[in-house]
């Protein structure tokens, strides 16, 4: 038996299952990151002194990563738009670009972490670094998770396009919503950790 409302919209809400599901999930994600941001505020306002982010962290590298992640949001939305235009090969190009940009973000972060660890700057070194590693680490896990889902839709999951293009387009839209949320979190992490 097919599960209802995977493609067709419910008459009462005007939404399908996937759309309401991903937004409820994102709401829970807001609270997850919210709890960590609240902890950051509490630790920072309670500290006798706190370093400016740019005295410890690499701002040019983080600015580059911000540009990379914003660009990946554009390629993601263009991948969805390509499916809406029924251009599958263009979708593949944009989705591939999104995955590569996500990978670029993680590689930059690898070098950034490596540099700090070489200097003996560990999460246990001080509260600033503990907050930095926790928030950026959790964010990196989200980037990785988003990349896995996007890679599935770029590769094996794409065969659904041939049998049910509307459902496939919905799926890409919903994975896109997650990807944009990851970008949105970084938009707040970047100034609060690196610039203030």
């Amino acid at each position, binding site marked *: 038996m097919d599960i209802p409302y995977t493609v067709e919209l419910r008459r009462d809400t005007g939404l399908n299952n996937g*759309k309401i599901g991903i937004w409820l999930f994102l*709401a829970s994600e807001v*609270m997850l990151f919210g709890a960590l941001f609240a902890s950051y505020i509490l630790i920072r306002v309670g500290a006798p002194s706190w370093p400016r982010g740019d005295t410890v962290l690499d*701002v040019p590298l983080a600015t580059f990563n911000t*540009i990379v992640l914003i660009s990946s949001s*554009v390629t*993601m939305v263009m991948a969805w738009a390509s499916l809406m235009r029924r251009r599958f090969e263009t979708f593949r190009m944009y989705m591939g670009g999104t995955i590569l940009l996500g990978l670029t973000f993680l590689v930059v972060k690898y070098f950034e972490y490596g540099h700090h660890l070489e200097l003996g700057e560990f999460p246990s070194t001080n509260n600033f670094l503990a907050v930095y590693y926790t928030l950026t680490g959790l964010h990196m896990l989200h980037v990785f998770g988003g990349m896995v889902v996007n890679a599935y839709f770029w590769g094996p999951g794409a065969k659904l396009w041939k049998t049910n293009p509307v459902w496939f387009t919905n799926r890409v839209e919903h994975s896109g919503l997650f990807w944009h949320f990851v970008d*949105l979190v970084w938009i707040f992490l*970047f100034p609060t950790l690196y*610039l203030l």
Partner: protein
Amino acid sequence: MTSDHAAEMSDHAVDIDKHVRVYITVFVALMVLTVITVAISYLHLSVPLAVTVALLIAIVKGSLVAGYFMHLVSEKKLIYAVLVLTVAFFVALLALPVFTHSNGFWIPE
């Protein structure tokens, strides 16, 4: 795919061309705002002013992403209801430590 769905996707395809132009505009705006955020940090403003400016720019950037890339500008009422509830709890979560601190319950030594 049913004929209804095919017709629906075809209708959307016309709208999508308009959407793509908006996405490019939003992309340029996000890049400009990123440059402004970094440039302002080099001015070394006082901490309260720097926090205010950085968060205001981040809120504008976040709104652009949520509004246009996540299509919140044209979403259904139920999604708005979920988000209003989420924002209320999120603000309470952030405000709690701030109020606790300002009421003197937290006195760092």
